[in-house]
């Protein structure tokens, strides 16, 4: 039953994310097409944007809190999936389509699967729980709570000099051009890094003789 309910929850979130992302993607693309000029922004102004934002933000927050308070590692992974998906939606809302796509592919498709495999490989029982001490929980809660309140205060009182670019310059071609010109060195370094990580991970995970 426990397991059953977790499945339902998981499926429900998947549905939300899928629907949301599809709708927003369509809307965003339309927006780019419709308002090709410097205005308030791609998604701004519309009630749809506000509703979507709050919906996605709620999913993200709830998922994050779910990650926080889950005792079960598998459930945490599921909540994380929700969080990652909602973050990807937020990227879409920020007109960073490429990043959003990468987020979904790499995170949700790669990293999360990697984590789930990790859970599978390292747990005698996927339901094994390791409880921290109470004081740690309370300490963490206080610190995080205070931090969040302070950050919120700072952010709400900050006056950002914001200008929305009319050019939703998040075309993949632009990013590719930037990566291979301005950010060539980091790009190459990232490639080297990935290779090193690949070798290292293979080495770490190899069967000991």
């Amino acid at each position, binding site marked *: 039953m426990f397991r059953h309910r977790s499945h339902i929850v998981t499926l429900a979130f998947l549905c939300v994310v899928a629907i949301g992302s599809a709708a927003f993607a369509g809307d965003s693309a339309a927006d780019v097409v419709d308002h090709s000029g410097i205005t308030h922004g791609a998604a701004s102004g519309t009630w749809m944007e506000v509703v979507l934002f709050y919906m996605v933000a709620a999913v993200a927050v709830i998922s994050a809190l779910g990650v926080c308070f889950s005792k079960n590692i598998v459930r945490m992974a599921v909540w994380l999936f929700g969080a990652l998906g909602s973050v990807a939606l937020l990227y879409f809302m920020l007109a960073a389509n490429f990043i959003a796509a990468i987020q979904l592919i790499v995170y949700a498709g790669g990293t999360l699967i990697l984590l789930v495999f990790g859970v599978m490989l390292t747990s005698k029982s996927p339901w094994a729980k390791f409880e921290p001490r109470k004081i*740690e929980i309370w*300490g963490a809660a206080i*610190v995080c709570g*205070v931090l969040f309140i302070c950050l919120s205060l700072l952010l709400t009182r*900050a*006056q950002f000099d914001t200008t929305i670019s009319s050019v939703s310059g998040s075309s993949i071609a632009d990013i590719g051009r930037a990566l291979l010109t301005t950010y060539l060195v980091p790009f190459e370094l990232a490639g080297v890094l990935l290779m090193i990580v690949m070798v290292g991970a293979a080495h770490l995970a190899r069967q000991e003789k």
Partner: protein
Amino acid sequence: MNGHTYEIFLALGVLSPFISFWLLVFFGPKLGKPWAGWCAVILGMGVPLAMASIVLWGWLGEDAASRAMLTEHAFRYHWANLGTVSILVGVKLDSLTVAMYFMVTFIAFWIFFFSIGYMSGHSDEVAGKSKYHRFFAYLSLFAFSMLGLVLSSNLLFLFIFWELVGLCSYLLIGYYFHERVPQYAQMKAFITNRVGDFGFIIGLMLVYFQLGTLDLDDAARIFAEQYAAGTGIFASSFTMFGWSLATIMGVGLFCGAMGKSAQFPLHVWLPDAMAGPTPVSALIHAATMVAAGVYLVARVFRLMTPEALMFVAAIGCITLFLMALIAMVQTDIKKCLAYSTLSQLGYMIFGLGCGAWIAALFHLITHAFFKAMLFLGSGQVIEGCHHEQDMRKMGGLMKKMPVTGITFLVGVLAISGFGIAGTKIGLGGFFSKDEILAVAWVRAFDWDDYSHHEAGAGGHHASVIPPIPAAEDSSNDVFSSEKRIVLVSDQPHGDTHTTSVTPHGLKPSAHGGDAHGRAGIFSQTPTLPKWMFYLALFTAYVTPFYMMRCWWMTFMGKPRDDHVHEHAHESPMMFVPLVVLAIGTFVSSYFLFRDLIADAATQATIAPLVMATDGAIHTTAINAAHSWLIYGVGGAFIVGFAIAIVIYGRGLGMASRIKRIAGPLHTLLENKYYIDDLYHLVWVKGCMAVAHIARFFDTWVVDLIFNTLAKLTERLAAFSGLVLDQHGVDGIYNGMADTAINVGDAMRRSQTGRIRNYVLFAVGGVTIIVVLMLAYWGVASPEQTVAMLAP
């Protein structure tokens, strides 16, 4: 010989046994059983004997004047200062020293020699470790000390060596320290000697304070001067027991002699000292060390007042009488000889007290020879009889031990004063002991006539003292028919080197003050109480009795114990010394020693108050009226021997009958007059009683006070410690320490080693920074935030 040759030889003779002692101490165990003994014989005594022989030979070659010169210029070394008194180390070189030195070395040499044979038959192992070498080390140390004592020119050094011989005596008595009896005996000897030495020290202090010197010759000179001038010690009005300070000084010095020579009240240690090995008994407790007391009295003779000398005489008289009686009932052969020694020492002391300086010292030397021989003989017997000391189990040993028996008999004859009255034929005591009696007789009976005659004839001038032969003339004439009073000059040596009394030296005017004039000597010197003479005379009859009894029980009659008799044998190693000493007894009776002592008397006996009397009485009649004395004394041994043979000739039967008849008397004698028991009661028990009282006092008075004080202190301490310290001072410090620990603990706890905690801390730090930023900018001033964050 000239210069300091004599002193050098004598000193070498003292050093040699000292070297031997250290050799034996360090290398004794390596030398092993016979060789350690030979080391002591050769180095410890052979060399001193050789030195003594050389010195004696040279000394006999000197005439009187050069002897006096040598005495005068004897070696002195300034050693130290005691306050204003300088202590001079030196050699007292005179005829007495030479004679004593030779006697000691000669006898000791043969006893050392005997010891090798004796020790070879004795087990010398204690707990698996041989102490053979130790015996000879002690003997060597004794030789060193005794010779040093003889040589000392200074009372302080004399005292030091005196104590050293006491130590050696202690060590040697306790040679068998693993047995009970020697332990007690050595302690008894040592403690008893301490009592005497206490008096000696008092005497020494009086000499030091009153005469201002510790040198023997200087002391005598100053003493005479003070007497003449009525100053110094004679000016003191202090009296005790009716004695003047000068008398107390003399008595104090004599107390030392009482301890060492075992005189009456302090005699108890000597019989017990026989628990030591027999050679030790012979050497120390018969021949030499016990003679040291007599030697001391002879040396300090010049510091004695008539009263002091009377005390000396009384003590000697009591000793000689009482001890002779005890000797009659002893059954232990060594104890018998020990009491005989005590009695003979009493004779010597008595002789000195009477003024028979020459006779007493002569007796000392002859006695040393024959008593050493007797003891060695007894050692031979005991050794031969399987360590049996009880004479009742002996008897008939003559056949088994002829040499021992004959030499023992020689000793018995010598001590008994065997001789033919009116002739020069005699042995040992016939010359020496009987001479003491003769002087005693003069002092007791003839003294008034004699002294009045002498004093009156010349008024107060000493020049009227009857012809005093010069030493070189008279010294050989032992049996001179003349009655002589040797009253030697007290003048400083530098004045004239006269060897005979000169009127000049005795002039009272030379010292001023006729009141204490020299001529007053005779009138001041009291008549000897007659009982003293009678006791001494009676003892002269007792002595042959107990000695013959001893000899007869041991060597004659029928064997009373088959086991002992069968075992009896002689060993040649041990009878050689016996024979040599027997010959020595003959020689010493006739030759050499009496001359030397008479010579020493002329040199050394400066007697301001008393005279040294030389009585050669018993050989020739002084006058017809007293001719009975000669036979009475000279024939004593016949009576004594006869009684002894009558009683013991046919076994012990008659003796036991007499014992029954004289029951209480015998019991009294057997228990030694209960003196030991008295001492035990008074001193040991007394000490215990005092200790008990002291303990009671301690427990109930002192302890109570101190316990109360202790309780109080404890309470105070508890208050200060528990309340103040623990809760106050400690509280502060413990608090500080605890705080430090707690803080440290708290700090330590943060270092959990868990990454997630560190993450939290890092974020906590960030949070704090954020909070601070908020606090700094203020929640309500967004403009500044803008300024901060604007690009």
